[in-house]
């Protein structure tokens, strides 16, 4: 076995051993608070077993390994339905950025360690009512206040803000310059006076996202993580940091085998649907698409192990897999006829077609809407021009509302 195969085998063995304690079955029927508590214990168990911060520097409490080990671990971890969601953003973006850009490194090291152990959670306060895809169009502002700053405004779609201890935030510090140039990046204490977190219930029934209001929230200049007016570059660095993540060609919905099982078990007009050409075509097309994504991922991993740089095709996964999952989930409900009505809003979207279907639109919007991903492919990979942008070069406060 190669080193990485040994690593994978060891990780798989450890994950198997803790799956009964923290995995899918153990989470059944837990309340939100109980599930979060279980998640914190799982994160601590990972830390103790050497699987937290796999590719982070050892001086921050990480394992000092490469992203290959990290992705290898994550792809094994995904199989068990662990309560990792609460920490995905925290450890994926804000905390690595704190390591890189945190002005006080002693403070940063303390926070990183607590985040790695699941004791503290960080959120990312980027999107706003008037700026999602158009991040630089955000309006929350920070004004000088004594030696520090005073924040006013509203953030939106902030995942896990209700459980977060800290957050990183991009705000406007100068409305008189073009929109990208007037932004500054800070960290904030989510428990500070004037921070008000209100969960938003999504279509599927869960409330992991929030709106967060800032009303005269005062912070010191030692919270600043970018030059004044240089916040957009750090925001971009935040979004680029997770270049190599474990992907799921099922689009974070059910495995195709579950669809095949459903088709085998379903009869219409006395005939099994697995013999129906319409169903067979969908199985074949979805398989070909997923095998293509899997082949891209597998080849990228081999290239990284060989010291080569994988191609940009790795960026296709979310675009292609989630919208396919959406359609396949619709069809899976169709297959069941009126039996398809049954709905359990605690069901997991990885193994329940109805949950997968109702949550699919979120997947196509969060973390880069389909349209933005297509723009990125067209512009960054194929060299096609940017869209017409009437706000280009215009001072933020001169952009027509």
């Amino acid at each position, binding site marked *: 076995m190669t080193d990485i195969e040994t690593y994978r085998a060891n990780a798989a063995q450890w994950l198997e051993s803790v799956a009964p304690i923290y995995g899918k079955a153990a989470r059944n029927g837990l309340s939100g608070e109980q599930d979060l508590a279980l998640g914190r214990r799982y994160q601590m168990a990972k830390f103790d077993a050497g699987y937290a911060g796999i590719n982070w520097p050892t001086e921050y409490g990480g394992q000092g390994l490469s992203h290959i080990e990290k992705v290898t671990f994550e792809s094994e971890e995904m199989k068990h339905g662990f309560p990792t969601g609460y920490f995905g953003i925290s450890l994926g973006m804000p905390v690595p950025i704190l390591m890189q850009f945190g002005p006080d490194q002693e403070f940063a090291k303390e926070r990183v360690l607590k985040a790695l152990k699941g004791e503290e959670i960080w959120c990312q306060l980027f999107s706003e009512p008037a700026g999602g895809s158009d991040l630089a169009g955000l309006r929350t502002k920070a004004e000088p206040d004594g030696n520090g700053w005073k924040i006013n405004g509203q953030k939106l779609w902030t995942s896990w803000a209700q459980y977060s201890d800290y957050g990183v935030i991009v705000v406007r510090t100068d409305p008189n310059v073009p929109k990208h140039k007037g932004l500054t990046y800070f960290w904030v204490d989510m428990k500070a006076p004037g921070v008000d977190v209100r969960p938003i219930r999504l279509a599927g029934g869960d409330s992991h996202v929030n709106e967060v209001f800032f009303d005269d929230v005062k912070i010191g200049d030692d919270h600043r993580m970018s030059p004044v007016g240089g916040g957009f570059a750090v925001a971009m660095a935040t979004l680029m940091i997770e270049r190599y993540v474990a992907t799921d060609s099922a689009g974070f919905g059910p495995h195709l085998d579950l669809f095949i099982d459903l088709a*085998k078990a379903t009869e219409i007009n006395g005939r099994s649907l697995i013999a129906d050409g319409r169903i067979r075509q969908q199985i074949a097309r979805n398989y*070909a698409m997923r095998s293509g994504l899997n082949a891209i991922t597998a080849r990228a991993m081999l*290239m990284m192990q060989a010291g080569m740089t994988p191609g940009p095709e790795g960026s296709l996964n979310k675009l292609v897999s989630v919208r396919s999952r959406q359609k396949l989930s619709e069809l899976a409900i169709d297959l069941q006829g009126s039996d398809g009505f049954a709905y359990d809003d605690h069901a997991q979207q990885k193994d329940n077609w109805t949950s997968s279907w109702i949550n699919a639109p979120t997947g196509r919007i969060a973390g880069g809407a389909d349209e933005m991903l297509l723009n990125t*492919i067209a512009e960054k*990979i194929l060299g*096609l*021009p940017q*869209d017409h942008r009437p706000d280009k070069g215009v001072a933020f406060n001169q952009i027509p509302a």
Partner: protein
Amino acid sequence: MSILYDEAQQSIANESRRVLEARVNKDQLLPLLESTGRYHEEFWNTAKEQGWTALAMPEEYDGLALGLVELGLIAHQAGRTLSGAPFLTSSFGMAKAIEIYGSDAQKEKWLRGLASGESIGVVAIASGADALPRQPRLVFANDRIDGIATGATGGLAADMVVALAQAPEGPVLVVAQLDGVERQAISSFDNSRCVADLHFAATPAEILVEGQDTQTAALHILALQAVITAHEQTGGAEALMETARDYALTRRAFGQVIGAFQSVKHRIAELYALVELARANCIHAASREGKDDFITAAAAARLSATEAYDTAARDCIQIHGGIGVTWEAGLHLHMRRARSLAIEQGNTLFWEDILVDRLTGEAA
């Protein structure tokens, strides 16, 4: 066999691309559409001269002993430039059938000519719409074959054939010389494919495979050819995606290049996705020869490559507007080829069934 496209493989890709781009262009290919029985000789001479015919053949029969990954790289480039003859795939299929299933004597007799490219092979497994018939139309008895093999790609120019035929005990794979076999040219929308009905009349033939293994062997040959064809389709799709991109960057309308309109740029980005999925499936399939899941991987490659090439042909022409539908622009060469390659080596319906049979365990 590396799937990383290492330095040696890159040089195969680069050199074949350089040679083909220098020697093949639409002005040579357009006239071939208007007559039957002609193919682009310079393409085939290039394939022989560059050793592509010998690439995936065993060393003891004058081959270069490389594999599907490397031949796939050549096929990809051939697809980009619109190969002017179908023999890279058909001769390869025939050679593989003999290499895997033939006796030493048969290998000695047939393989060297295929490796040098002096002989052209054709594979005739299909009967009409059925890519892998349970009861073939050709009849084999007393070491001779009779009957008509319809729609054989390369049939007009081939010297010898591997065919699926019905023997008294069941289907067999046979090999035969085509001397004296009447070939009826099919006037088609893509005439350089040299498609013909082959009229066998007491044509002497030798058995390659008989008994229960015959269907498995025939499917394996089809899958090998399908993987090469899928690379060719992916190459064609990639070339069209790039052509569409280049045109969208130069053509102006309403005061800007048309590539700045999302309806155009997203269309091209979608092509990129189809091309990369097809490419990844192709490389994966090429690396699975000899493994349990080879047929599954080949089917996935074939399905995604067909979708990529057909879609790229439609959309590239659409993005070009009026100029795209002219004879002169030649985009229809790709549109025609996309359909040719879609119906050779088993169509989409065939491979969808093959794939699902495997995924559901029905093929076990």
